[in-house]
């Protein structure tokens, strides 16, 4: 054993560290905007003009705000599902897959139960989607907790299994007989989530999403299991030594993540598309990861991040029409945010080390 005389630095949390933290939250997004600005300059556009156009297109009117919130809706779910695991130190990248299987599960309930059941179909559909999502992520959760199977690889692989299985289902057993390839029949009208601001597609799923974020906030701060999970995220050895069961926490957060992702899939299927199609998710799980990273797993951060990415998506679509700026700019920004959200952790560590005497 090495000499244990080395002490951790004793320095109080100073205001400058809080400033640094605040900057840390904005840093990846600032970098992404700079990258986008450079690209815009290269193609001869004025970034300020484009950014202000984008701001107008995403928040400029009631309709645009509705479009932004609509685009943010699935991200609320996937970001919470990701954050639940990340704050526990579980690197679950399988939210995308759970979202997709949850979506098909809800769609299946939505068109196969008798239409006469009315609102109850929605409840059953959400419950079933949550169950399927939970089982989906329970598998890698148990593998990690009991056999130390690397969760990154197992959840990544499960995503592709989800795409394959759902792709098979919508082309086979669940294929709509009237609508052609790659789609299920539409859900009953009774199973559709209410549109909040027609003609916008903003639907009741957004409210469910906000409720999920609130529930997440309550869970993280005001429940013993949320507390335990946070401790596991800080240090597994410490948690074990104070009597917290690490495997139980890991399995719990994977299941919760699956439930939330399943809800997200249900919301998207019943509220947005009214059915399940191949290509159901254009990567909401991964964008949700960017949101969770940007929001540092905090509830408020997640809401802001989801709205930010929702705004990018909704502005991106219309901006392509108005200014010939390709929609792909949004992906560039998202990718940059993801990369710099993790780079920045190293940067912070570097700064604080330098600050130490």
């Amino acid at each position, binding site marked *: 054993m090495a000499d244990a*005389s080395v002490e951790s630095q004793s320095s109080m949390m100073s205001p400058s560290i809080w400033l640094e933290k605040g900057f840390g939250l904005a840093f990846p997004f600032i970098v992404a905007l700079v990258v986008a600005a450079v690209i815009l300059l290269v193609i001869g556009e004025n970034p300020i003009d484009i950014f202000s156009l984008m701001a107008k297109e995403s928040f400029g009117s009631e309709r645009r705000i509705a479009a932004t919130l609509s685009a943010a809706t699935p991200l609320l779910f996937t970001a919470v599902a990701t954050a639940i695991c990340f704050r526990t130190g579980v690197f679950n990248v399988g939210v995308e897959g759970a979202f997709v299987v949850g979506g098909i599960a809800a769609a299946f309930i939505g068109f196969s139960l008798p239409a006469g059941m009315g609102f109850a179909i929605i409840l059953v559909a959400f419950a079933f989607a949550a169950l399927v999502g939970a089982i989906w992520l329970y598998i890698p959760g148990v593998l990690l907790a009991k056999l130390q199977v690397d969760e990154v690889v197992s959840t990544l692989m499960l995503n592709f299994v989800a795409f394959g299985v759902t792709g098979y289902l919508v082309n086979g057993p669940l294929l709509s007989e009237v609508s052609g390839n790659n789609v299920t029949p539409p859900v009953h009208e009774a199973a559709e989530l209410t549109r909040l601001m027609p003609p916008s597609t903003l639907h009741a799923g957004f409210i469910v999403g906000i409720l999920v974020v609130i529930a997440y906030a309550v869970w993280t701060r*005001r429940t013993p299991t949320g507390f335990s999970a946070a401790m596991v995220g800080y240090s597994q050895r410490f948690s074990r030594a*104070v009597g917290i069961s690490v495997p139980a926490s890991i399995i719990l957060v994977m299941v919760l993540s699956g439930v939330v992702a399943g809800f997200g899939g249900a919301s998207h299927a019943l509220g947005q598309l009214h059915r399940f199609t191949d290509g159901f998710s254009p990567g909401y799980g991964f964008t949700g990861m960017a949101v969770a990273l940007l929001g540092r797993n905090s509830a408020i951060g997640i809401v802001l991040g989801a709205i930010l990415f929702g705004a990018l998506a909704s502005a991106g679509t219309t901006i392509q029409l108005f200014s010939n700026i390709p929609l792909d700019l949004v992906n560039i920004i998202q990718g940059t945010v993801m990369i710099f959200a993790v780079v920045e952790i190293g940067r912070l560590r570097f700064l604080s080390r330098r600050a130490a005497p």
Partner: protein
Amino acid sequence: MAEAATARADATVRLGARNISKSYGPVRANRDISLSVAPGEIHAIVGENGAGKSTLMRILQGMEHPDSGAIIVDDQEVRFSQPQQALETGIGMVHQEFMLAPDLTLLENLVLGDEPVSLAAGPLSRIDWAQALQSGEELAKKTGVAVDWRRRAGGTPVHIQQIVEIIRLLRRGTRILILDEPTAVLAPQQVEDLFVLLRNLRDTGTTILFISHKLKEVVALADRVTVIRRGEVSYSANVAETDSDTIARYIVGGNDTSLIETGRASRSKTGDGEVVLNVTGLEAPSLEKSHPLHGVSLSVRKGEIVGLAAVSGNGQDELVECLVGLRSASKGRVELLGGDVTHATNGERRRKGIAYISADRRHEGLATLAPVQDNVVAGSHDRPPIGKGMFLSLKQKRRVATERLASVDVRYGHLSDPVSSLSGGNQQRLVFAREIASDPKVMVVSQPTRGVDLNGIAAIHKLLLQFRDDGGSVLLVSEELEELLYLCDRIVVMAAGRIVGEAPVEGTDIAEIGRMMVMQGHADG
């Protein structure tokens, strides 16, 4: 192959330190240390864990920079900005954790970073394995050991790994060899073999710096010994002119007579209370670089502090983990308040009334990046008053945390500051605050004052004595014999995974216990 830097035959000091000091924050790991090792000498550095030996070695090896003072090689002052430079100067170190890549063969490990090539093409150069093997064989012959160079390092017995590491250094021109507790992992016969090898090396001109806990080995092997205690050189002598009793006294501070005469706290008043923690015939596999447990039996009564004295790596960590439920025993029985808890989890034992102060405060005792309040309530967060059914009361959490922190006078800035912002002493007090708050019957306490300043030590001692006077029982594991003598009612000595002796505190000589700890280790190991 690297050319050995030309050794100066006429040097009087092959390797030395001149007034080296090094602090980590408030802790002064090395204070004004001077040392000189003559060419062709085996020089032993001894001292307790935490005395500052490893810091000194890291400095000599270029891994750390001294705050002040200088390193001397061949009578010249040198400066190392990285380990590579020390290696090129001819200083090589064999660490406690062996530095071989487990999935590579011994031969691959041997040539790493200095490969003989048959076709030079920069990184794409083809390695000349035949030549590599030849150089390995030659050096192995010198050491008198047969090495199967094609074996995976990970599947090779540790003593062979160690020898390969020594050979690797020799091959790169090392003429000053530093060995950090090289015998910790070896069986007695292997220790003998290693000593033969080291004497051979000395006789062919290699200078050896040998770090050890074990006096018997020092006396058997070294030409000269230097004792480091609390960051300072407390003693230095030619081995031929001293004896192990004298060295032992300097290691444990036995010459500081004032402490021994007055350094005793009040004794337990309850005396022959009921047995609250009872261990019989415990056996368990070992952690890395340590000893498995062999039939360990001991008991702790109500209202007494039992000390467990052992040099680190002699099974005390395994025992502690078995007691608190972090490691499962392969044989034997652990009873808590008369109930069998041998197979109970850590959580279950805690609920029955056991508390645990870990020796590894920074990784096990605390979650250093988590807020102060979370650290001090963790473990009782799921029970009233904090946990109420499915929910957790933030108000109660704050209240409980504030009360607990105040009860042991922890100085902190804000409840939500990370624990890492606290000083070592305050961190340890926080751990005590958490553990005592659950109103335990027994506390298993391991190295409670390691890395804690003097005021902090006094506070922790007071806490332990108070706990005992209130009827609590303590099993205290420490390498600080003074601390054990000061606090304990009885001391049990452990060596090589066995209990080797027990003594009441009254009338026991500190050197006597020290001898049991350091001498008995291999007598029956």
